[in-house]
């Protein structure tokens, strides 16, 4: 199911039928709620796996691969970085971002090693093989510690993806979680519907 179809289902529930042209709940607004709800169900999926099976796991369906992520060098720190498509989820290391690799054409075929930002000072102090590359996420950036120049290279990142503005994209969620996402979004929208809109422009904030 594409996001557009899912959004249409939500809008029909919200409006009690096919929305009119003057409907002001836009597809993009619903999509913003879906992004947040998807992140929540990914976390539920992760914790469910621990509760039920006793092992950490996130369904493979949540993962997407992003290519051609260009790398730049930070002049102050000497580290390299790229911009991720979204802030990674707060899952255990190796689950939010599962894999970082480089295209074989770059000659950097070996997978970088994930570390925590708290381990960086330690790693800065130890000897390391020149070919090893370490990475860690900070917000929406993925940083690299590398003795090999990465400028001009691009990376391939496989990560749990819950955000996109492409409404024609397929929902990368296991089908059984769709009703949960629907309920979460409709709960947001219940508040929206129940809150009186200040439609009078009289200079008084009536929130």
């Amino acid at each position: 199911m594409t996001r557009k179809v899912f959004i249409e289902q939500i809008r029909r529930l919200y409006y009690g039928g096919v929305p009119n042209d003057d409907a002001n709940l836009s597809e993009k607004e619903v999509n913003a709620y879906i992004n947040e709800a998807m992140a929540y169900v990914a976390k539920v999926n992760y914790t469910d796996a621990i509760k039920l099976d006793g092992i950490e796991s996130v369904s493979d369906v949540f993962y997407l691969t992003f290519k051609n992520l260009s790398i730049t060098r930070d002049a102050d720190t000497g580290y390299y970085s790229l911009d991720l498509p979204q802030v990674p989820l707060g899952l255990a290391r190796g689950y939010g971002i599962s894999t970082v690799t480089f295209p074989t054409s770059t000659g950097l075929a070996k997978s970088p090693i994930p570390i925590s930002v708290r381990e960086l000072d330690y790693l800065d102090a130890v000897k390391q093989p020149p070919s090893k590359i370490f990475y860690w996420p900070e917000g929406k950036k993925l940083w690299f510690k590398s003795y090999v120049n990465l400028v001009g290279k691009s990376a391939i990142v496989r990560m749990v993806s819950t955000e996109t503005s492409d409404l024609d994209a397929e929902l990368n969620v296991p089908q059984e979680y769709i009703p949960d996402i629907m309920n979460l979004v409709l709960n947001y929208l219940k508040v929206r519907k129940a809150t009186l809109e200040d439609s009078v422009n009289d200079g008084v904030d009536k929130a």
Partner: protein
Amino acid sequence: MVSLVMPCHSWWGFFVYICNMNINEIYKLVSYMVDKYQGTYLAPDDFNMAVNAAQRQYLNFLTGETAEFNQGTRRAPGGFSNDVTTGGSLSNFLKEGNLTITSQLAAQPADFYKISAMRTTDDDYAIRRVGADKIYAYVSNPIDNPTNTDPIYTEIGSNFKFWPSTLSTAKIIYFKKPADAKWAYTGDLVYDVANSVQLEWPENDHMDIVYRTLGIIGINLKDGDLIRISQTVKNDGQ
């Protein structure tokens, strides 16, 4: 053998009479009642003025008040109900046209009365109406700022103003103003069918316009009164 054809009872004839009236019959009916209830003569110009005011008032009612409702704590005080009855009455006035947008502005059509919808010319995307006091919030909105696939407009004077600024055309679906009806005559108040202008409304709306015409003139009737009088007019051939 049982006939399935409905017999022409007097009430049926009356029904046809009151539902299927031309401007001459409406004028005769209204004149009769003015004479009966006010004892005065209704000049054609006065009738034309009253019937046109009545049809504009009726159009305003259908497009402005038929959708009033309360849902929870929200209230929608305007707009029209697009049900079969209202939609059928208004269908004669619903028009579609293309707007050319220059510097974000497009003029309203000459016969524009009230807007129903605005879309991109390919009908792929709705163009949302936004109040002038919310334009800033939309234009700089981080979630759904206007784009060519999610445009917005507002009404400024006799123009529509569109966002984003790259939008060059739009399709408008609107209600046109009803043409002014006219009871024309020659000589000694002889009905001039050639120069008269009929109401554009569907036949089932004629009685509503008659009621409103009488109200404007100052006669307020109940349904039964109007039915009896209409029957009298019919029987007497006036």
